[in-house]
Protein backbone atom coordinates (compact mmCIF):
# COMPACT_ATOMS: atom_id res chain seq x y z
CA UNK A 1 0.00 0.00 0.00
CA UNK A 2 1.13 3.56 -0.76
CA UNK A 3 -0.14 6.50 1.30
CA UNK A 4 -0.80 9.62 -0.80
CA UNK A 5 -1.16 13.08 0.79
CA UNK A 6 -2.39 16.40 -0.65
CA UNK A 7 -1.81 19.82 0.88
CA UNK A 8 -3.06 23.40 0.78
CA UNK A 9 -4.94 24.53 -2.33
CA UNK A 10 -4.57 21.10 -3.92
CA UNK A 11 -6.15 19.45 -0.86
CA UNK A 12 -9.13 21.78 -1.18
CA UNK A 13 -9.43 21.31 -4.95
CA UNK A 14 -9.39 17.50 -4.70
CA UNK A 15 -11.51 17.68 -1.55
CA UNK A 16 -9.30 15.13 0.18
CA UNK A 17 -6.09 15.24 2.22
CA UNK A 18 -5.15 11.58 2.05
CA UNK A 19 -5.88 8.43 0.09
CA UNK A 20 -4.32 4.95 -0.04
CA UNK A 21 -3.31 3.14 -3.23
CA UNK A 22 -3.17 -0.64 -3.09
CA UNK A 23 -0.62 -2.54 -5.19
CA UNK A 24 0.94 0.42 -6.98
CA UNK A 25 4.31 -0.06 -8.66
CA UNK A 26 6.06 2.59 -10.76
CA UNK A 27 7.39 6.14 -10.75
CA UNK A 28 5.91 9.20 -9.08
CA UNK A 29 4.70 10.48 -12.44
CA UNK A 30 3.07 7.11 -13.18
CA UNK A 31 1.36 7.28 -9.80
CA UNK A 32 0.09 10.76 -10.61
CA UNK A 33 -1.26 9.52 -13.96
CA UNK A 34 -2.91 6.53 -12.24
CA UNK A 35 -4.69 8.93 -9.89
CA UNK A 36 -5.88 11.06 -12.80
CA UNK A 37 -7.29 7.98 -14.56
CA UNK A 38 -9.06 6.87 -11.41
CA UNK A 39 -10.40 10.40 -10.69
CA UNK A 40 -10.62 12.20 -14.06
CA UNK A 41 -11.79 15.50 -12.50
CA UNK A 42 -8.45 15.66 -10.58
CA UNK A 43 -6.40 15.93 -13.76
CA UNK A 44 -6.77 19.69 -14.21
CA UNK A 45 -5.42 20.26 -10.68
CA UNK A 46 -2.93 17.41 -10.30
CA UNK A 47 -1.19 17.71 -13.68
CA UNK A 48 -0.36 21.41 -13.33
CA UNK A 49 3.30 22.22 -14.01
CA UNK A 50 3.79 23.86 -10.63
CA UNK A 51 2.66 20.87 -8.52
CA UNK A 52 5.54 19.55 -6.39
CA UNK A 53 6.05 15.93 -5.30
CA UNK A 54 7.61 14.44 -2.20
CA UNK A 55 8.55 10.84 -1.49
CA UNK A 56 8.90 9.85 2.15
CA UNK A 57 8.93 13.50 3.17
CA UNK A 58 11.69 14.59 0.81
CA UNK A 59 11.19 16.57 -2.41
CA UNK A 60 11.50 14.12 -5.33
CA UNK A 61 11.67 14.16 -9.13
CA UNK A 62 8.85 12.67 -11.26
CA UNK A 63 10.96 9.66 -12.30
CA UNK A 64 11.63 8.51 -8.70
CA UNK A 65 10.38 4.98 -8.05
CA UNK A 66 7.66 4.37 -5.46
CA UNK A 67 7.69 1.22 -3.31
CA UNK A 68 5.09 -0.43 -1.09
CA UNK A 69 4.93 1.34 2.28
CA UNK A 70 6.10 4.67 0.87
CA UNK A 71 4.48 8.01 1.66
CA UNK A 72 3.88 10.23 -1.36
CA UNK A 73 2.72 13.86 -1.26
CA UNK A 74 1.53 16.37 -3.88
CA UNK A 75 1.34 20.08 -3.16
CA UNK A 76 1.52 23.57 -4.70
CA UNK A 77 4.66 25.74 -4.43
CA UNK A 78 5.45 26.51 -0.81
CA UNK A 79 4.75 29.96 0.65
CA UNK A 80 6.06 29.89 4.21
CA UNK A 81 8.38 32.22 6.08
Amino acid at each position, binding site marked *: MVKVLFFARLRQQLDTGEIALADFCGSLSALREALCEQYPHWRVYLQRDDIRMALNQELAEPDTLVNAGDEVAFFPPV*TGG
Partner: protein
Amino acid sequence: MKAVDRIEVCETPLNVAVEYAALQGNSGDGACALFVGSVRDFNAGSDVCGLALEHYPGMTEKSLQRITGEARSRWSLGRVAIVHRVGPMQINDEIVFVGVTSPHRQAAFAACQYIMDRLKTEAPFWKREAIADQTGNATERWVEARASDAEEMDKWSAG
Protein backbone atom coordinates in the same frame (compact mmCIF):
# COMPACT_ATOMS: atom_id res chain seq x y z
CA MET B 1 30.95 21.55 22.15
CA LYS B 2 28.45 19.68 20.01
CA ALA B 3 26.25 22.04 18.05
CA VAL B 4 22.57 21.57 18.81
CA ASP B 5 20.07 23.14 16.47
CA ARG B 6 16.73 24.38 17.65
CA ILE B 7 14.14 23.52 15.00
CA GLU B 8 10.56 23.96 16.01
CA VAL B 9 7.12 24.26 14.48
CA CYS B 10 4.71 25.82 16.97
CA GLU B 11 1.05 26.78 17.12
CA THR B 12 1.55 29.35 19.88
CA PRO B 13 2.97 32.88 19.54
CA LEU B 14 6.67 33.17 18.89
CA ASN B 15 8.70 34.93 21.59
CA VAL B 16 11.70 36.65 20.00
CA ALA B 17 13.25 37.61 23.35
CA VAL B 18 13.21 33.98 24.53
CA GLU B 19 14.59 32.74 21.21
CA TYR B 20 17.40 35.31 21.27
CA ALA B 21 18.30 34.38 24.85
CA ALA B 22 18.48 30.68 23.91
CA LEU B 23 21.09 31.48 21.24
CA GLN B 24 23.46 33.01 23.80
CA GLY B 25 26.21 31.31 25.76
CA ASN B 26 28.84 30.43 23.13
CA SER B 27 31.41 32.91 24.34
CA GLY B 28 33.50 32.55 21.18
CA ASP B 29 30.58 33.72 19.01
CA GLY B 30 30.76 37.50 18.76
CA ALA B 31 28.18 37.73 15.98
CA CYS B 32 24.46 36.98 15.98
CA ALA B 33 22.23 37.57 12.95
CA LEU B 34 18.48 37.27 13.31
CA PHE B 35 15.53 37.44 10.98
CA VAL B 36 11.89 37.76 11.97
CA GLY B 37 9.04 37.56 9.47
CA SER B 38 5.63 38.87 10.52
CA VAL B 39 2.10 39.00 9.13
CA ARG B 40 1.74 42.09 6.95
CA ASP B 41 -1.52 43.97 6.50
CA PHE B 42 -1.30 44.03 2.72
CA ASN B 43 -0.26 41.62 -0.01
CA ALA B 44 -0.67 41.91 -3.77
CA GLY B 45 -2.77 45.03 -3.39
CA SER B 46 -5.36 43.68 -0.94
CA ASP B 47 -6.04 44.38 2.70
CA VAL B 48 -5.07 41.32 4.70
CA CYS B 49 -6.89 40.91 8.01
CA GLY B 50 -5.54 37.53 9.07
CA LEU B 51 -3.50 34.54 8.03
CA ALA B 52 -3.45 30.79 8.54
CA LEU B 53 -0.46 28.55 7.92
CA GLU B 54 -0.72 24.91 6.90
CA HIS B 55 2.29 22.61 6.86
CA TYR B 56 3.30 18.99 6.21
CA PRO B 57 4.14 17.57 9.65
CA GLY B 58 7.22 15.36 9.49
CA MET B 59 8.47 16.70 6.18
CA THR B 60 8.65 20.22 7.62
CA GLU B 61 11.11 19.24 10.34
CA LYS B 62 13.20 17.14 7.93
CA SER B 63 13.33 20.03 5.50
CA LEU B 64 14.44 22.54 8.15
CA GLN B 65 17.07 20.11 9.44
CA ARG B 66 18.45 19.61 5.95
CA ILE B 67 18.63 23.37 5.35
CA THR B 68 20.39 23.89 8.69
CA GLY B 69 22.87 21.10 7.96
CA GLU B 70 23.74 22.61 4.59
CA ALA B 71 24.19 26.05 6.15
CA ARG B 72 26.59 24.48 8.67
CA SER B 73 28.55 22.85 5.85
CA ARG B 74 28.99 26.25 4.15
CA TRP B 75 29.87 28.46 7.14
CA SER B 76 31.43 28.11 10.57
CA LEU B 77 28.41 28.54 12.83
CA GLY B 78 27.77 28.34 16.56
CA ARG B 79 24.08 28.03 17.32
CA VAL B 80 21.24 27.89 14.83
CA ALA B 81 17.52 28.25 15.57
CA ILE B 82 14.56 28.06 13.19
CA VAL B 83 11.13 28.50 14.72
CA HIS B 84 8.08 28.62 12.45
CA ARG B 85 4.55 29.18 13.56
CA VAL B 86 1.55 27.38 12.01
CA GLY B 87 -2.23 27.72 12.40
CA PRO B 88 -4.27 30.92 12.56
CA MET B 89 -2.59 34.23 13.33
CA GLN B 90 -3.20 37.99 13.35
CA ILE B 91 -1.59 41.05 11.70
CA ASN B 92 1.87 41.73 13.22
CA ASP B 93 2.17 38.23 14.70
CA GLU B 94 5.59 36.71 14.10
CA ILE B 95 5.54 33.85 11.57
CA VAL B 96 9.18 32.83 11.48
CA PHE B 97 12.35 33.37 13.51
CA VAL B 98 15.79 32.45 12.21
CA GLY B 99 18.83 33.03 14.44
CA VAL B 100 22.47 32.20 13.77
CA THR B 101 25.58 32.81 15.85
CA SER B 102 29.15 32.67 14.61
CA PRO B 103 32.61 33.98 15.40
CA HIS B 104 32.28 36.00 12.18
CA ARG B 105 29.72 38.61 11.23
CA GLN B 106 29.75 37.76 7.51
CA ALA B 107 29.09 34.07 8.21
CA ALA B 108 26.20 34.89 10.56
CA PHE B 109 24.56 37.21 8.02
CA ALA B 110 25.08 34.87 5.08
CA ALA B 111 23.81 31.78 6.90
CA CYS B 112 20.73 33.58 8.22
CA GLN B 113 19.84 34.84 4.75
CA TYR B 114 20.59 31.44 3.15
CA ILE B 115 18.31 29.66 5.61
CA MET B 116 15.48 32.13 4.91
CA ASP B 117 15.95 31.86 1.13
CA ARG B 118 15.82 28.04 1.24
CA LEU B 119 12.95 27.95 3.73
CA LYS B 120 10.93 30.21 1.42
CA THR B 121 11.45 27.94 -1.57
CA GLU B 122 11.41 24.40 -0.15
CA ALA B 123 10.02 24.06 3.39
CA PRO B 124 6.43 22.74 3.12
CA PHE B 125 4.42 25.65 4.54
CA TRP B 126 1.45 27.26 2.82
CA LYS B 127 -0.19 30.56 3.70
CA ARG B 128 -3.90 31.27 3.35
CA GLU B 129 -4.88 34.92 3.76
CA ALA B 130 -8.16 36.39 4.94
CA ILE B 131 -8.90 39.44 2.78
CA ALA B 132 -11.36 42.20 3.69
CA ASP B 133 -13.36 43.44 0.69
CA GLN B 134 -14.97 46.90 0.31
CA THR B 135 -18.10 45.85 2.21
CA GLY B 136 -16.03 44.60 5.13
CA ASN B 137 -16.66 40.92 4.41
CA ALA B 138 -13.69 38.58 4.62
CA THR B 139 -12.80 36.10 1.90
CA GLU B 140 -9.92 33.65 1.92
CA ARG B 141 -7.25 32.96 -0.66
CA TRP B 142 -4.07 30.92 -0.87
CA VAL B 143 -0.95 33.05 -1.17
CA GLU B 144 0.83 32.64 -4.52
CA ALA B 145 4.51 31.74 -4.58
CA ARG B 146 6.69 34.58 -5.83
CA ALA B 147 9.22 34.19 -8.62
CA SER B 148 11.57 36.52 -6.72
CA ASP B 149 11.99 33.90 -3.98
CA ALA B 150 13.19 31.31 -6.49
CA GLU B 151 15.59 33.88 -7.95
CA GLU B 152 17.02 34.67 -4.51
CA MET B 153 17.63 30.96 -4.01
CA ASP B 154 19.36 30.62 -7.39
CA LYS B 155 22.06 33.08 -6.40
CA TRP B 156 23.41 30.60 -3.81
CA SER B 157 24.09 28.04 -6.55
CA ALA B 158 25.69 30.57 -8.87
CA GLY B 159 28.10 31.70 -6.14
